[in-house]
């Protein structure tokens, strides 16, 4: 092994337990659920504005009730994102695969 191929981390004391904990926390917040939740909220709000809004609000977009249609589309998209997240949850890597990857970087050789 040459110097170039030595494993390197800027903090040698990071243990596998630290990495496991980091993986668990990272898995707890799934961007698909965040997007789904936010878009569900936006979709419901736009749909309501599309239903109860004044005729000016309903017709401003060249006669199209744009709030209603966009709201419904956002709700559909939110269901897709949340459904995807529930059907295929993020699984932490099994322990035997971990260790080589995250946090262990090869250092550039002195030139």
């Amino acid at each position, binding site marked *: 092994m*040459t110097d*170039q191929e030595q494993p390197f*981390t*800027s*903090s040698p004391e*990071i243990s596998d337990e*630290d*990495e496991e*904990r*980091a*993986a668990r*926390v*990272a898995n*707890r*917040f799934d*961007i698909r659920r*965040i*997007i789904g939740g*936010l*878009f569900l*909220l*936006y979709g419901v*709000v*736009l749909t309501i*504005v*599309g239903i109860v*809004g004044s005729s*000016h*609000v*309903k017709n*401003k*977009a*060249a006669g*199209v009730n*744009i*709030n209603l*249609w*966009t*709201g419904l*589309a*956002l709700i559909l*998209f939110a269901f897709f994102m949340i459904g995807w997240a529930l059907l295929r949850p993020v699984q932490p*890597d099994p322990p035997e*695969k971990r260790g*080589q*990857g*995250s*946090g262990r*970087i*090869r250092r*550039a*050789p002195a*030139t």
Partner: protein
Amino acid sequence: MLRLNLSAVDYGILITYFVVVLGIGFVARLSIKTDLDFFLSGRSLPAWITGLAFIAANLGALEILGQAANGAQYGVAAVHYYWIGAVPAMVFLGIVMMPFYYGAKVRSVPEYLRLRFNEATHAFNAGTFAVATVLISGVNLFALALIIHLMIGWSIAVAILVAAAVVLVYITLGGLTSAIYNEVLQFFIIVASLLPLTLVALHSVGGVDGLKERVRNFKPLGEPGLHAWQGLGIHNVSNPLASDWVGVVFGLGFVLSFGYWTTNFAEVQRALSARNMSAARRTPLIGAYPKIFLPAIIILPGLIATVTVHGLGGSSLALQYNTAIPHLIGNFLPEGMLGLAVTGLVAAFMAGVAANVTSFNTVVTYDLIQSYFAKDRDTEYYLRMGRIVTIVGILISVGTAFIAKGYSNIMNYIQTLFSIFNAPLFATFIIAMFWRRATPWAGFCSLVAGTAAAYTVNRLDAYNTIFHFGSALSASFWQAIIAFLVDGAVLIVVSLFTQPKPKEELRGLVWGLEREAEPEVNEDPRDKLWWRSPELLGGVAIAILVVLNIIFI
């Protein structure tokens, strides 16, 4: 009038977004234990997230407003920025270059240069990248502040400070993970607001046929405004771009685009944060698909604005081409959608700044501080340093925001910056990766010479002494080509007179010198599925591109 009246519902939508963005920052903070978590998300993200972030990092406010401005000013020909000027380079990055970057386990683009050449090349590249990034980040800040000022009426100073403060908080807390998650979120909000806007605007001008008719009868665009490739003949330029096909294909398509997409660390960083080699290679390829179709919701509304907004392209601040999309928002969107659209623009701006800031803090911390000033400290030190550099970077961006003020078309300013800082880089990289004889000092000389050449041409053009290009756009294409040629020539000539690196040190860094096989990190058996093949993903993207170019010829 550009001034919009936001209702309580609109403000509610905007404020909800700020809360979610900050929330992501706070949760992401929990997952950060090491400097690598902060700067590269611990190399743990799946390809669809890094792929969307790859696109969203580039989809800042200045991209949206600037490209819509190009659509308004140049017509359909502005699609060259996407189809010629982005997608081929993204496919090349995923298929050819990513194995070098990800396989060498470098943490930044300058670090590749250190392994391949020497510390002088590394330091020069890291330094110029840091300067360019802060300037560009300032452009994003200014673009947003201006739009908020025109649309909502906040003062420019307040707009800059509020938005900069939000970015500051979520990046300082959650690092790259925070930035990438917010980029993905922002991507969907942009599409959710621009797609309905475009459909409604198109409906109002009588659909596609109605729009074509209006553009044909519209001066100064007329029929050429509907074609991407007509009127690009050498010495026979009648295209609104005022450039011939050599400028478009080699300047924009080859030098500028490959320079930006394959060597700009703000982009490459997204791929480096992917969980394994397969995901890293698929990052730019997955990003290529939305990129192909983005002109439909960015350039198309710009073109619609040019025929519907009376006086667009005038000299007053509220009628600059950059305001094409804000004008459409004001004309068509009622309360509710209005809030979503304003949120989309604000989100785009913040993502643009965040992309610059996350790449800036990584390069400054790893490539300048760790490499030359504070070697071998513990991870807490670099983590803390990363957070401090983040704060400093945002403060400098606020300062540079006002440099952008002098340019009427923001996209031209940004292209000028890229043609100085990015264009020469690509020549050095492409030769470095394919020619093992390229020597360390040749790498350094080529970068210095290329940057100097780009700057010289830029200044000569600015003072109109020697070069006369048809438009600022055409000038940036040619400036890039000259920089590229000078850079490449210097690299080859100096290499012939200096000592190359021994072969063993170049393993895994140069084409044809394979590294000894290592076990794949985070291997996933499902990456072997046929539809995850990088070659297939890239090939299909190129095929779609060819078809679209024929349709819009």
